[in-house]
């Protein structure tokens, strides 16, 4: 078989946010594009914590906020540091985030991804569901010319394939775009979707109407490196943890037990108690960002979204869907241009990496390249929460007749008590400042 049999200009594998955006761009450029999804509908295999930042769609779907299936607009963002008996919360709210063009929104992925794939169909992409791609088809020179699927006579041909097949991307691995896979670069996300009446959620979280809350948590993961989250949907909460895989495997503690531990924490229990678990779910996250970035193109092939490990797990910024959409759009545009020029080799597709470097997708990853490692480091995970919580406790605790202690002295004492060397604290502070600054 050769590319003469191609029925499509491009095949996009996976109708998640990356794949749908790639398909939209190709269709907009007038290309015949097939979007292949292995689930019975787009989004059926997809799970995340719960917040999406869709501003990347502004020029593509004008006033997307009127049609996107959103649960709540995040107008309140909290960052919590937990120790077994303490909680420090930095809480911010903004009314601006509750009005167009908005900022973040909670949404269910089966709803959101289904909607976005519908946008791709509206633009002329052909969506094929319930079809698993099992491998790449190549010509004599090794160039990708299509995909093999599990349908009878299921070989599909196109001069370019965009693999948006998720974190496990068997296509990217088959194409040799990844080196050795290192489990330390991945985390497991597990969550419970917990039903509570709408008014109870609004009372507990102090929001009204369609406004909602995003709580990110350091600590509270049973001593396993990772983090936790609580998000408000309309009449459910998304409560879960993200756990570094080797640390999870090393502890004799199961993922659902870690969620139970978080839910029992004195700062979290009052928010979640009494709710009924509607759905338990899990997904792996490519956590290491820049450190694990694969090659992004091969002859006839581009990769985007989680398949290209483009999730951003940078402590105060936890984003993935927007990086998937941004990379998917760039991949679609570059593939369309390469089709026009008739050069679909890796060199012909090299503009993809440059396009990502010129936008937030790789600019953010490069700038924040040291942050995922810092956030999941043993000091940040196991020593700093105690240090910070004890420091704040001593600042606010009135120990009369003792006079108030000076901040510098408390810091020095608590640093020693937490077993943190001054040199390490300064180095981590410097890494943080340099990355975030």
């Amino acid at each position: 078989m050769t590319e003469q049999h191609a029925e499509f200009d491009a095949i996009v594998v996976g109708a998640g946010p990356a794949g749908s955006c790639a398909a939209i761009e190709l269709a907009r450029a007038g290309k015949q594009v097939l979007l292949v999804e292995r689930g019975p509908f787009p989004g059926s295999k997809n799970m995340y914590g719960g917040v999406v930042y869709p501003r990347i769609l502004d020029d593509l779907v004008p006033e997307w906020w009127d049609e996107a299936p959103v649960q709540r607009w995040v107008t309140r963002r909290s960052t919590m540091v937990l120790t077994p008996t303490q909680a420090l919360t930095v809480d911010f709210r903004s009314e601006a985030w509750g009005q167009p063009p908005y900022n973040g929104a909670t949404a269910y992925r089966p709803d959101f991804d289904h909607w976005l794939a519908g946008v791709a169909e509206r633009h002329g992409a052909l969506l094929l569901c319930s079809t698993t791609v099992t491998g790449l088809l190549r010509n004599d020179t090794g160039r990708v010319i299509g995909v093999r699927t599990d349908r009878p006579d299921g070989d599909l041909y196109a001069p370019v394939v965009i693999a948006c097949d998720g974190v496990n991307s068997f296509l990217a691995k088959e194409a040799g775009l990844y080196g050795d896979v290192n489990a330390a670069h991945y985390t497991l996300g597990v969550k419970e979707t917990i039903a509570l009446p709408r008014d109870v959620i609004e009372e507990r979280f102090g929001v009204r109407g369609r406004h909602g809350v995003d709580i990110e948590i350091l600590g509270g993961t049973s001593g396993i490196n990772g983090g936790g989250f609580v998000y408000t949907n309309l009449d459910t909460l998304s409560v879960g943890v993200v756990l570094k895989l080797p640390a999870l495997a090393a502890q004799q503690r199961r993922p659902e037990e870690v969620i139970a531990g978080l839910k029992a924490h004195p700062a979290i229990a009052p928010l979640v108690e009494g709710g009924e678990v509607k759905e338990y779910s899990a997904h792996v996250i490519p956590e290491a960002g820049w450190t694990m970035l694969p090659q992004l193109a091969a002859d006839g092939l581009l990769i985007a979204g989680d398949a290209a490990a483009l999730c951003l797990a940078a402590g105060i910024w936890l984003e993935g869907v927007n990086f998937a959409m941004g990379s998917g759009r760039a991949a679609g545009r570059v593939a369309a241009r390469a089709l026009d020029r008739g050069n679909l080799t890796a060199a012909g597709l090299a503009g993809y990496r440059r396009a990502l470097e010129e936008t937030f997708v790789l600019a953010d990853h490069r700038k924040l390249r040291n942050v995922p490692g810092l956030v999941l480091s043993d000091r940040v995970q196991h020593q700093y929460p105690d240090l910070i919580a004890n420091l704040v406790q001593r600042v606010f605790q009135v120990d009369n007749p003792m006079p108030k202690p000076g901040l510098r002295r408390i810091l020095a004492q608590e640093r020693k008590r937490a077993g943190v060397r001054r040199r390490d604290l300064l180095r981590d502070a410097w890494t943080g400042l340099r990355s975030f600054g």
Partner: protein
Amino acid sequence: MALIERDPTWPEMSFDDRIGTAEFRVHERAHIVVDGDVCRGCTTRACVVACPARLFVPTADGGILFNYEQCFECGTCYLVCNESGAITWTYPEGGHGVVFRRT
């Protein structure tokens, strides 16, 4: 850091009830294959503790029993497995496997 004590008043869910909240359209072909001979030589048993669907169960004779039916298709098992070739993992047939809910 000390582990958080489980709140004894929390109504803990059985694992069967928990996994029963998710929908799985099971295909007759197993998409996970485990080589029991390799597992017998494994000392870490990382899959047993890490799999969020609790699909891997150690047996008395040192092997591993596994299920594939109620699988989230997350990939944790093969990523944490440090015995090469023990777990062969592919996606289930199109339209099958886990189906997360729409509202």
